[in-house]
């Protein structure tokens, strides 16, 4: 009997917690989990399972400050690629990343994943913000 009551209470609490998840949280989770799939398929071979890059050949995705400072241009970087010198974690990289060929939605998903993995923490990149950023690519 006692066990049943405790079970019931637990269930109610959990159900409450789930339904209390804000819409934003749900949106974030959706972007994040799809982003994880995109990352595995399109980025992981180069940037690594832990986002740690490859020696001085491919930069890691662990430089939260770089990602934050370049927040508005990350979408363009994935759309058009990146070439030339970048400083990541105080180390110089001088290589080339080709255009990713991803759709704006996939870009939003993978950016949400990258900027919230590997020790990074940032807001959800939505398809709206990505489209706005893409409109300003040079």
């Amino acid at each position, binding site marked *: 009997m006692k066990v049943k009551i405790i079970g019931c209470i637990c269930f109610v609490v959990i159900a409450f917690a789930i339904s209390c998840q804000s819409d934003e949280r749900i949106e974030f989770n959706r972007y994040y989990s799809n982003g994880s799939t995109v990352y595995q398929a399109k980025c992981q*071979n*180069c940037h690594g399972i832990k986002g740690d890059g*490859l*020696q*001085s*050949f491919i930069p890691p995705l662990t430089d939260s400050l770089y990602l934050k400072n370049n927040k508005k241009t990350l979408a363009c970087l994935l759309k058009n690629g990146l070439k030339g010198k970048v400083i990541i974690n105080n180390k110089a990289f001088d290589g080339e990343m080709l255009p990713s060929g991803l759709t704006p939605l996939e870009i939003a998903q993978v950016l949400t994943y990258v900027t919230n993995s590997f020790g990074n923490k940032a807001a959800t990149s939505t398809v709206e913000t990505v489209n706005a950023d893409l409109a300003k690519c040079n």
Partner: protein
Amino acid sequence: MKKLIYAATIILLISACKSNNSTLPIYGNKKPVTKTVNGKQVTDTIYQTIPDFKFVNQYGDTITGKNLDGKIYVADFFFTTCPTICPVMHRNMLPVYNEFKSNPDFRIISHSIDPKYDTVPVLKKYADKMGLSGNTWWLLHGDKDATYTIAKSYLTSVQEKNPQGNYVHDGYFILIDKQKRIRGTYMGTDPAEVEKMTADIKTLMAEPDQNPTK
């Protein structure tokens, strides 16, 4: 008590298997040859070996089969601008490099299958970025046909660019012994297989065949 005996038997069997496993198989075509030694007929097996070649490494040095005499080595095929499996292969190769780089009888050779882009300076830059120094890991530039021909002798396949502009190649690491015979092939994109290769290299290094008494 019975259980204990079973367990002990199993452990014994497993350890027995392990110690039996002290030589690696030899791959490739083989043909028997019969010759006469001291008036007696003896049959020997001749194994496929890697034919001689001539390429240039990242330092601009000419490398032939002779430079690999008396070496155990691992070969693979890649190109520096490869957008797909090569970064994974070489990420997995790095621990192998680090493990054996102080051993003068060990080499890694990576043949570029895109000689037009991967010139000697490009290969040197790649080596620098990967943190390679010394002569343990050579990145080889060579004539395209020669590279594609040697690939066949390693039982591996490389192909021209496919319509997407990617070169097709299969990502295998091939382990070659001091007699230039194929002793193992491993999927270079799979960290578990590469760990197996590292273990196999140690097994191979300990084989009597690989340690001729001078």
